[in-house]
């Protein structure tokens, strides 16, 4: 308890609180700009953090982390261009809401959802870190493979009406994830066309800008003279979701999404984009009004935004209790601690107990700061869609370009973006849904990695399937879900095929 009070005392100081606000603000900006993302923001601020003490450094970096994960929702909702990979699933319902004139409401829902998810995971972090880590490390490569395959099977929630086009889109995503050196051993160059720049694969930022942003800009450029979408919003100082969008009927969904997000966060190696995607597909599967998903329902926004912020606290859990970062951002935060001379590992709780509480408290305050800043900012953000498109589009193009240069500092990525943009435009205009492509891309390389590891560990796929483990059950579940979805969705297609056969 004295540790807690000591931590409370050091966090509630003007300097630390100010740094939390600054960090969160910077994070939101980096999150909101397509192409700039949280890992970039954290890596950029890392050198600054040396000069600060340990606690102020954590305040700054964790603020950026929390703000960055949430900030992606702004452009995802208003422009259908996810600011970060974590916000990909937010576009599915957030943008349709915006189109209906509910942009400000969607932003309020997303912000509120982020706050709930982040706070939930901060509470889990405070009380259950050690026991949950012990459970999490019991999951091996085969279980990861099962989880990933199961997540992929949930694509049936995303494919929309035309199942065939949905699955084609998913396979394009899986294909893109194959580009580069083979995962695990790096011995085979795949689809690199002799260009070394492709050996590292197509990075997620590049894919998002290419597949999402460019086609959106292109199609908007074709409609410059049409009326701009006007976001309807009441003049308020502080935005919270309307009564119909925050009642107790959303509590089960929020709990479910918080748990999924936190769980994905704890699993080392899985990030917030996977968490949000999995939560969204799960929410669609368990929802009473499945049909509303994708057309602009509050549930869809909640599912994505609650989960992606829940990942943040979750990802800190294995870092604090074992020195194992839960995702790429926590890996950099861990490096910041190491550079401060603190060895992060299983002894952190005993050697620096108050630091652990500091991190928990900062996480909590950063979520609060994110909620306040974003809620205050909503009227400002919502104005974006009222800006005439001929002003807005060049600005977006510029932001995206800077974002893409900042990934690897090279022009090559521009060309990749243009090619992906053409692909995205062609797919969009031929009614191929893009969400399955992104799901396939996000999960593709992990699926391969964990399958190959499983084969190294256990010898053969048969051996893996003989094990009584969560992985095996998940693989079986994935097959069942896929078959069931195909049969249900294709009822008339099957009918037609059968009739044709009977005729023939």
């Amino acid at each position, binding site marked *: 308890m004295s540790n807690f009070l000591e931590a409370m005392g050091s966090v509630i100081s003007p300097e630390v609180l100010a740094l939390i606000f600054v960090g969160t603000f*910077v994070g939101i*900006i*980096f999150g909101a*700009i397509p192409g*700039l993302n949280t*890992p*970039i923001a954290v*890596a*950029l601020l*890392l*050198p600054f953090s*040396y000069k600060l003490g340990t606690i102020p450094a954590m305040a700054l970096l964790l603020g950026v982390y929390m703000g960055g994960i949430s900030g992606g929702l702004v452009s995802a909702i208003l422009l259908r261009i996810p600011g970060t990979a974590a916000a990909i699933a937010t576009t599915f319902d957030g943008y349709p809401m915006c189109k209906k004139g509910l942009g400000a409401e969607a932003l309020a829902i997303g912000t509120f959802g982020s706050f709930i998810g982040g706070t939930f995971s901060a509470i889990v972090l405070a009380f259950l870190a050690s026991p949950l880590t012990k459970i999490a*490390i019991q999951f*091996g490569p085969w279980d990861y493979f099962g989880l990933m395959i199961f997540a992929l099977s949930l694509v049936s929630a995303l494919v929309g009406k035309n199942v065939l086009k949905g699955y084609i889109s998913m396979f394009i995503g899986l294909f893109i994830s194959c580009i*580069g*050196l083979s995962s695990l*051993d*790096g*011995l085979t160059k795949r689809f690199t066309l002799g260009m*070394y*720049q492709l*050996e*590292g694969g197509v990075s997620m930022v590049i894919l998002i800008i290419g597949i999402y942003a460019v086609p959106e800009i292109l199609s908007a450029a074709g409609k410059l003279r049409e009326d701009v979408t006007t976001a309807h919003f009441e003049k308020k100082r502080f935005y919270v979701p309307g009564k119909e969008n925050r009642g107790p009927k959303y509590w089960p969904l929020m709990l479910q999404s918080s748990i999924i997000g936190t769980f994905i966060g704890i699993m*080392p*190696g899985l990030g917030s984009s996977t968490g949000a995607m999995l939560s969204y597909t799960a929410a669609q599967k368990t929802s009473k009004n499945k049909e509303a998903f994708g057309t602009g329902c509050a549930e869809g926004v909640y599912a994505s935004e609650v989960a992606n912020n829940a990942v943040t606290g979750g990802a800190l859990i*294995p870092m604090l209790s*074992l*020195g*194992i*970062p839960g995702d*790429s951002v926590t*890996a*950099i935060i*861990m*490096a910041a601690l*190491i*550079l401060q*001379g603190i*060895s*992060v*590992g*299983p*002894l952190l709780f005993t050697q620096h107990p108050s630091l652990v509480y500091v991190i928990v408290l900062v996480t909590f305050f950063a979520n609060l700061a994110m909620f306040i800043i974003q809620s205050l900012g909503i*009227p*400002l*953000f919502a*104005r*974006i869609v009222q*800006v005439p498109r001929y002003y807005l589009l060049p*600005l977006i193009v510029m*932001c995206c370009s*800077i974002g893409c*240069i*900042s990934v690897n*500092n*090279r022009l090559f990525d521009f060309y990749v973006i243009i090619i992906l943009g053409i692909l995205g435009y062609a797919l969009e205009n031929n009614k191929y849904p893009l969400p399955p492509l992104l799901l396939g891309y996000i999960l593709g390389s992990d699926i391969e990695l964990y399958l*190959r*590891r499983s084969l*190294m*560990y256990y010898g053969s796929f048969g051996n893996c399937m003989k094990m009584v483990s969560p992985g095996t059950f998940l693989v079986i579940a994935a097959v069942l879900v896929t078959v069931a979805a195909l049969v249900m969705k294709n009822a008339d297609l099957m009918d037609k095929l059968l009739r044709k056969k009977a005729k023939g």
Partner: protein
Amino acid sequence: MKKLISLALALSMALTMAACGNTGKQPSNSGTPNTGSQTTSGSGSQDTSGSGSQTPAFVPERDITLVNPYEAGGTSDIPSRIYADFISQNMGGRLMNVNCIGGAGGAVGAQEVMNSNPDGYTILVAPAGYAMNYAKGGLDWTYENFEPVCLYVTSVLAVAVRSDSPYQTYQDLVEGVKANPGKVNMGISTGGLPQFSVYAMEAHDDMKFNTVDIGGTSVKATELLAGRVDVMIDSLGGMQSYVESGDFRLLAVFADSRHPAYPDVPTMLEIGFTEDETSVMSQVFGIWAPKGTPAEAIDYIAGQFEAAANDAETVEKLNAQCYTASFMDTEDYLGYLEAMYASFSDFAKTYIG
């Protein structure tokens, strides 16, 4: 409208920040470094002693970018940042920024540096893994495609088991593996140095592990913690916190002498390995510059790293993470690289075929 302007301001602020962080990396078209007209491109021999007096010394006009070809927070990132932090204080207001360009086992970052302007403003962290991957046929370039600058840090690999493992000593492990050929799970990161160490260990005692991949990030310790692998090889720095907490036990370190922090753990030489066998087991990091970088710039950078390697605080920070500040100047480092590449390819011929 005011609000719009403030938003635009906020955006531009963020963008400037992003740009600031990267200025060192952008190939400059305007600023030409004042290194004179003399170029030393292509000269393999580094007669650095004479050049200093004749040509104006290199003074950085911009920030220098140190490219770490792996992800942020990894084994090569932390010592690089410790060095860069010290060096940044001594560059007359200019900074040394660490830029992580990961991917393809370090190949992407190396290619980026290889193709960047040879002006001394972009340099590469080069791990021993490049020599290994070249020997395996995974890379088609060597240190000869760069201008090696210096060696600046080494780290020690070690063999670890869980503390409840039946293997108390390295000999126990050998006997255990011989009794169950192909059954003992050995965790390594594929494509990393430990892969060769495993080949050497298997060849030395004529035994066979079931070698499995546990990845290259700091996540790998989970595999031994959870007992999915029986033994693992990793850098001592990555495992020390688990040794201290009593989760892991070290069986051997891959170093010439015992590690000061673990005086009870024998070296592979003591266990009976020859120097030839252990020559491919030490993790060294050097600095490489693009081919054609002027000798003055190379001297300048090497000098900065030497000063950092002699700084007590930097050394202390490195030691705390189980790294050793071992500086080697350009000439010695070239000789070292030559020998290292030779021993890796000999080794590959003998053991992998």
